[in-house]
């Protein structure tokens, strides 16, 4: 008989506690982000595909000296560089920088090894494509087109 009322009492108490918890959640702010209209701030640590950093003084220029260190160090072999010698310019001029993002493991070796800090991770998280070739990025063209 004692148990009979004890169960009723503890049960009723836990029901009321449950109701209070949901009521409290009801008045707390909504946590959903309405994605296409609202966006979260991407953390600076995020690793998107690499891109060529633009020069701070001359925004249309990149800092790459075509040394080829990134190409050599890349464990996945997804970087292909091309450079040529031009009249009146010291060193090689970058003519082509291709990143095969399908192979990239985002290890960051290329970013670390770059002597002129010309490479960095982008904040791009919306990579989408219908073909494999859509992820073969031409980083040099991205700089020239100002993307």
């Amino acid at each position, binding site marked *: 008989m004692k148990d*009979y009322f004890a169960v009723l009492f503890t049960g009723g108490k836990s029901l009321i506690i449950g109701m209070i918890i949901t009521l409290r959640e009801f008045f707390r702010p909504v946590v959903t982000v*309405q994605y296409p209209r609202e966006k979260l701030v991407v953390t600076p640590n995020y690793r998107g595909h690499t891109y060529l950093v633009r020069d701070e003084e001359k925004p249309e220029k990149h800092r790459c000296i075509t040394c080829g260190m990134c190409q050599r160090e890349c464990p996945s072999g997804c970087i292909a560089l091309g450079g040529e010698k031009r009249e009146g310019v010291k060193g090689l001029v970058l003519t082509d920088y291709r990143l095969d993002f399908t192979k990239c493991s985002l290890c960051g070796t290329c970013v670390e090894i770059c002597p002129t800090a010309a490479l960095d991770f982008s904040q791009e998280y919306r990579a989408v494509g219908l073909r494999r070739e859509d992820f073969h990025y031409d980083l040099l063209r991205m700089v020239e087109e100002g993307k």
Partner: protein
Amino acid sequence: MTESFFLPDLLRILFTFVCAIVIVFGNAVVMGYLERKLAGRFQRRPGPMEIGWQGVLQLAVDGVKLVGKQLVIPAQSDKVLYRIAPIVSFAPAALPLLVIPFSPKLQGRDFDVGLLFILAIVAINVLAILIAGWGSNNKYSLLGAMRSVAQNVAYEIPMLLTLLSVIMVTNTFSLQGIVEAQERIWFVFLMPVAFIVFFIATLAETNRAPFDLPEAESELTAGFMTEYSGMGFSLFFMAEYTYMFIACSLTVILFLGGWHGPPLPYADYTSAIWFFLKVYFLLIVMIWIRWTFPRVRFDQLMNFCWKYLVPFSLVHLLVTAVVVKL
């Protein structure tokens, strides 16, 4: 029967029926939206947001979708029973609204046995669920229907016993009379235990969570509604919301003083506002309960009814009888 008597009465019948249908559909739309919106808020989601301001037109779009759906009749089903089940569920849903007193003057008909009338009509829904479960010829449907019948029969007993306590005090089955008896004090303050027992029993009667075993999604897919699509499904859905509205109206009439509230101008008609406010408060509490508690197991459901609700309502009936006699 003279013509001057006949015409206003006919108009009254027409008007009441139109109002009842409007309430049935209006309530289904409001509740459908409220349920989803509140469910979202309880889980810290915004709920429907895409169609209209804050998603208010979501139900209209859903309605169009449901009307456009094909009515699939399973080959193995009992075709006649399968087809009439949603109609049997939905058609009587509007009838109890004819006797519910929304305000002193806004009432279709004040029967002397209005309360019994409502209880008799509401009981038809169990039959509809059983027909749907049997006619679908599907194990989930049948299990859901069987559970529903067992649950409804069990919970009708404490419900009727608590009603009897109220009737002992008011001495009338007329809903108008019951509300008028609460002019000075609402019955919820006189008999809080009866109110709690009655409210729990109505939750079980309307198959609401945590007593939603007949349509337990995780075990029975959708219970007796499993095989229904399109309008067949939405008729069940609207009937369910209407029965919820009726159950809450009954609770308001019996325990929360019906239309009584702070005085308003033209109180004979406008006090319906208090009635609706109370009803929707109870409906929101029902939604709140649904999104708080997990579903009970079947043995727990039966234990709770037979071991707690029935003895409590019996003792309550006895105490009420003694107090009334003194």
